[in-house]
Structures are given as structure tokens and as C-alpha cells.
């Protein structure tokens, strides 16, 4: 299956901003995070199709996954 993965802020450094990536069916978000060498404790916000998600949630074909470090502003 194909997942649209977007990385933001410091996670872009040395990686990418957006890529369509292939994974086996039912791959969990945590697996994608680990594969990208992003330390789990640095993950601040996970948005799966614009809804907050958790690391153990499985992905489906055509999903949009956005991964952010902890960020803030105002």
C-alpha cells in the first residue's frame, strides 16, 4: 500500500518534506516513525488524515500521515 508521509520542522532536516512511500498492509504508524530514524520520544504531533493519531494505529492505502516534533507558538 502507499502512504503519503509528510515531515515538518526539524524532522525535515536530513530526511524529506513529503514522499509517497510503500509499506506492507496494516503497517503501524510507529513502524514508519522508526524506519525514518525519528526517536519516538521526539514525536509531538501525529496527524492521520487530519485527525490526531497514536503510534500503534495501523495505516491503510492512500492515508496521509503528518509527523511533527513538539512545537508551539501563538
Amino acid at each position: 500500500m502507499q502512504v503519503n508521509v509528510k515531515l515538518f520542522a526539524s524532522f525535515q532536516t536530513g530526511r524529506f518534506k513529503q514522499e509517497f512511500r510503500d509499506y506492507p498492509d496494516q503497517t503501524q504508524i510507529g513502524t514508519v516513525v522508526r524506519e525514518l530514524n525519528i526517536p519516538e520520544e521526539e514525536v509531538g504531533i501525529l496527524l492521520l488524515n487530519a485527525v490526531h493519531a497514536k503510534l500503534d494505529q495501523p495505516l491503510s492505502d492512500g492515508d496521509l500521515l503528518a509527523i511533527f516534533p513538539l512545537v508551539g507558538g501563538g
Partner: protein
Amino acid sequence: MDKILRINMSAAGGPTQSTEKAGEFAALGGRATTSTIVGNEVPPDCHPLSADNKLVIAPGMLSGTAAAISGRISVGCKSPLTGGIKESNAGGQAAQVLARLGYAAVIIEGIPEGDDLYKIHINKDRVEISVDNSNKLLDNYPLIEKLQKEYGDKVAYMSIGSAGERLMASASIACTDPELRPTRHCGRGGVGAVMGSKKIKVIILDDAGCKNRPPQDAERFKTANRAFVEGIRKHPVSGEGLPAYGTNVLTNVLNEAGGYPTNNFKTGQFEGGTKISGESLAELEISRGGKATHGCHRGCVIQCSGIYNDKDGKYLTKQPEYETVWSHGGHCGISDLDTIATLDYWDDNVGVDTIEMGVAIGVAMDGGLLEFGDGVGAINLLRDEVAKGTPLGRILGGGAGMTGKAFGVTRVPVVKNQALPAYDPRTVQGIGVTYATSTQGADHTAGYAVATNILKVGGDVDPLKPEGQIELSRNLQIATTAIDSTGLCLFIAFPILDQPETFQSMLDLLGGFYGIEMTGDDVAALGQKVLTLERKFNKDAGFGPEDDRLPSFFQTEKLPPHNLTFGVTDEELDQLYNWD
């Protein structure tokens, strides 16, 4: 801060001044001071631009001390925009300088006869109030440049541009940054118009010969300050995200979450979002020899700001904030950073609130004045209409509510006539509660539920559901009111919400400075007390429960992509102030 300066602009024979003991205000500051004085002294039913209104300026409880990031200044009055009480705060150098000069507050009352324009010069030895008509209708950048020849570059300036002189309800008061740029604004609620109504163009603050305010318990204060700075530096938001990308790091977050109000609150996602994101902004700033990291005042250890240069590498403006990038960007369908930065420059120069002005332009676009996405048209409106005080410029400068009426727009995003900031309340329901119920009108900083709803700092409350939002907003509004009184920048909320030891070091900082014991309960009690008196002022000014509401389109129009409406009920909103 043992004295209060009172200036009476109405006095026969010209303005008079007197100094009084600070009394209870010696150990207060910021919003607590301005709102208490406004509550005690301003008739709630007065016209905001009349002689009865007062402009109160107060540094925070820790301003002018060695405490890190303590340079926020509060300005209070009855707001010409909302008709309710107003506290508008900003960074820049003014708070530190005014506090070192020993003033807990400056209270400006009355209105002088005639057309003369005044300036106020405050230094260690005296206060001078004088006529200077050569400053008339100068905007902030040329004004500060001119004044520097007279007063030098070791002082802090608080000034109004032409919008303040023209009494526009979106007019701000500019505070200069460490490099004397008039870029840090008490923006919200038209405080600049109140200063303009009193015919004061600029206040020059000179602390030559003054020292930092000394703490009562030097050892405790010093230890607490060290721990406080350490806590700020080690938290990912204040230690990494904000310095590297500024507040505009939020563009991508809100856009991805579907909570980024686009084309005047029609959708929750903006196609051009990535182009104007904090990531793109920082990259552009660095490539043009500007800076992605800069502090608005000396002593700021987060440094969320930056310097934006134009294509030729020449200074154009400070790094536009997330709110500005949104109001002039996605809200208006504009996705060009140079256009947004130019609008930011004009906002600062003319002296208007970037949120109110951007939202007004977007509302005018919805009313057919311009096409969404017309960046050139937006710049023309600001530079050729607002800055020149044309009738159209005055309508826009009167804010989003007035603009909506002028153009017959039904989708007007205001609460208590103040424009909504950059988070859609249908996708971020907690911030909707704050917008609706804040004493200040729609104001994200009054209780930043975005942190818990979207950013997952300080807890986790589902942004798409009404459950838990009242309690969240209530607690945040109480805490924020207290922080707005300390002089500390609100962005310390990120580390103190997540790290109990950093919250403790903030308490110790206050306790060590004033030689008292401070607990979390004391902070909450202060916040509640100030909110209660602000609410009383609003009630006496004619506000009721029907004013603690979002505009009805948030209940009737579903916002894509989540296709939700605002789900918190009126009955629930009325429970926010459950203690008074």
C-alpha cells in the same frame, strides 16, 4: 516600582503631572495593575475616546529585574473596539526601562483642548510633557528615526502611527525592540486610538543611571532564575521549535489538522499553506541574510522572532508572527511571503493590529471589494487607504466588524467586535470557548487551548469534540491572566505546563523577588480576582451572556475537511465563570 505617575491632559493651562505612592500596586504588575486601575477609575459607560477614559501602562511584576524573559508591558483602558475592558501587552524594551525607572504604572487621563500633539519624556530626574507638532501624522518608522536624533538610541519608545492619531479602532501602540525598530505592538483592541485621543504621540523612556530592581531574597531569586532558564531551554517548544521557526511553525500544524481558517473562514485547509509556513519563512530569512532567531527584548531566552530582509537583502520587517502570516495570508487566500512581510511592515508603520487589519481585509474580500488572493490589492488598501486615512481606509481601520457592515458581509468573524485569530473554533473547539468567553473579545492568548487540543502540550483534549473544553479554557484563562501580570512572556507556558519543576521555579522567582511564599493557588487566586473585576467592568458597560457567544455561522456552516460545527452549547459557555 514604588510610585505611580499620573498625567492629566485636561488640566487648564496645559497637562499636569503628579506622582503618588504605588501602594497595593508595588507588588502587582501588568494586567492585574492595568485592569484594577481601569476597574477602579474608569466609568464603564464612558465613551472610550472621551476624556473619562484612561490609558494605563504597567510593566510586569518581574520587569526591570534580572529575571529572564520578563519584559512584557501591559496597556489598559476601555476599548474603542470592543466597548469593554482591555489589556493589550507587548514585548520590546519598554517594560524593563519603565520598571527600572521605578514606575508601577503611568496613568494618562483627560484630553487636552486644541489640536496640539504632545510627547512625554521620562527619565530618572523628571517627566517632561511638551508640544511637538512636527511629529503630526508621522508613521512609526520615520517617527522613531527622527526622535533618535533627539533622544538617542539608549532609550525605549512607545508610539502611535497615523492610525492612532486618526482614532482608528484597530490602532496599536508600538514599542521599540533592542535595535529601536517599532515592531512590538500592544495590538489588540484599539489602545492606540485611546493614546491618540489624548493627543500623545510618543512616550520616551530613558533609564540612564537606573539599576535593575533588587530582589528581597537574592539567593533564592538567583537560584530560581537559573532553574527557570534551564527549564525553558530544555523544553522542545521553547528550546528548539520557537527559536528555529518562530510562531509561524504553526501554519503547517493547523493546516494539516484542518483548523486553518481559509478565505474568511470558509475552509480549514489552505492550498498555499506550505509556501508561507514557518519552515519556508526561516529558510528564506536565512538565505537573504536576515535572521530566523531574534529576541524582542534583552533578556529573552526563547527568541521566537527574526529579521525579514527583502529580495535585495535589505531589512523589510521583523519576522511576521503566525497570526500575521495567517491574517494576511491564508485568511485572504494570499500565499506569497514577500506580500505578507510588506503588509506586516505597513501594519507596524501605520500602527494597526495585524490580526484586526488582516481579518478586515479578508472580510472586505468576501464582500467583493477584492478577489481572494489579490496581494497587490491588499497592499494598496493598507498603504494607499488606511495609511492615508481615506474613507475606505477608515472603514478598514475600524476593524473587521465595521468592515463587514460596510460591505454587507454575513460571515464576520468577531466576538465582542474583536476579530478572531488563526484557529477555527469548529476544528479547535477549546479555543472557541476562549474566543467566546474572554473578557477581551476574541483573543487566542487569553486561554490558549490550542496547546492542549492540537499541540498536545500540557495534556490532551480532543479538539473536535466539545467535551472538556469549558474546564480547559477556564483553567487556562485563569493561569494566563496571572502570567500576563508577571511580565513574563506567555510562551513560558509551554515549559511550565509540561514541567512541574519549571512551574515551581517561576513561583520561586516571584517569591524570591518579593520575599514571600508563592504557591500555585496564589497564582490561580490572582487570575480569578482579575478576571472577576474585568467581568464586572464589562457587565457595567452593558455586556451580558449573549455577548459570550461566537457568531452564529459557526453553528450553521460546517467547516471542511472535518465538516463540523462548533458544538459547545450556550448553557455550557455560561458556566465558564463558575466562581463569580
